[in-house]
């Protein structure tokens, strides 16, 4: 999956679906950014409340050192936390977002392996993301990381409301929830 060097600001589609190892930026009146079946992957969501500009990153692995070839991190930095997360604020700023207005959250990082105690890929993804945001000076307002179920995340670009769903089958919602991060038209 080829990665774009600069974000394509989507403005005409109703809802944008973000796949594995992908990052999409969109602005209202695009209705939402959505990603499904996170598993051990983590979705990182950011929203500028004034511009109603949002970004969703679906990152898979923590460290790009395992594959810096063109088919790996060099071709698609959004596969890895260490190459993908630093791109997020840069892309948002290209779109005119302000770091001080950003509201961020992350979800996913489930332990999907049977022998989860030894693998813990979800946990291994979470810490580098927190570190990357700390280094970038961006506050992670909320997170829902862990567990044993795959997550789906939807960011409403008009309100900034994040919806979190847990379940492994399409259309099957086990415990619908909400990332209570963004209030409608919120700002501080």
């Amino acid at each position: 999956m080829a990665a774009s060097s600069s974000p394509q600001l989507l403005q005409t589609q109703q809802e944008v679906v973000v796949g594995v190892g992908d990052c999409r930026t969109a602005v209202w009146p695009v209705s939402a950014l959505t990603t499904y079946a996170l598993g051990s992957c983590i979705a990182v969501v950011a929203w500028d409340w004034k511009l109603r500009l949002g970004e969703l990153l679906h990152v898979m692995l923590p460290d790009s050192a395992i594959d810096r070839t063109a088919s790996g991190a060099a071709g698609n930095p959004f596969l890895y936390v260490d190459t993908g997360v630093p791109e997020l604020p840069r892309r948002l700023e290209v779109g005119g977002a302000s770091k001080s207005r950003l509201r961020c959250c992350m979800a996913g990082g489930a332990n999907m392996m049977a022998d989860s105690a030894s693998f813990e890929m979800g946990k291994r993804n979470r810490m580098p993301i927190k570190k990357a945001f700390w280094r970038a000076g961006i506050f992670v307002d909320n997170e829902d990381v862990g567990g044993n179920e795959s997550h789906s995340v939807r960011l409403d670009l008009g309100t900034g409301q994040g919806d979190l769903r847990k379940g492994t089958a399409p259309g099957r919602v086990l415990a619908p929830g909400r990332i209570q991060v963004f209030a409608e038209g919120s700002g501080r």
Partner: protein
Amino acid sequence: MNIPQAVITEAMTEVLETMYFMSPIYQGEALPEIDSLGVSVWFTGPIRGQFTLRVSRGLASRMTSEFLACEAALPGPGQIEATVRELANVACGTFMSAWMPDENFEYGVPVPVTEALESFPHSFPVGADQPKMYLCVYLRPPGLIPPPFRWPAFSGPISKVDNGGNGGIHA
């Protein structure tokens, strides 16, 4: 007195992950010789003791860079020592609260130590990547423990200073 390994490991994990973005891995009780910084925090309460932390210098530098969000080459010796003192401060409280949650303790200020780890009976290392970090909790008989060092109590009211020379640092 037996100190539960799980309690101290969980306490250190919480502190290291939250403040320094590192995950400690229990490595066993071998204590190799390493160039390190040692900090102790005395505590008194239902029991008295000394919580001692020893951190290899390379790891201390890396932890400082994570804590302050700067590159590893930038932290100065003063910042590194201050970071290790804060680590000991927070780790001691986290551990004691987890170990004896229903008890209240008083704590001293973190102070540098140079005693060899071999003299501390309840020591076990918590390795966080490379190089290793070692953690010791040492409980001495009550009669041999000095009272924890605390800053003397301040007395007298403070009035506004007109010269502005000692005002706060405007960040």
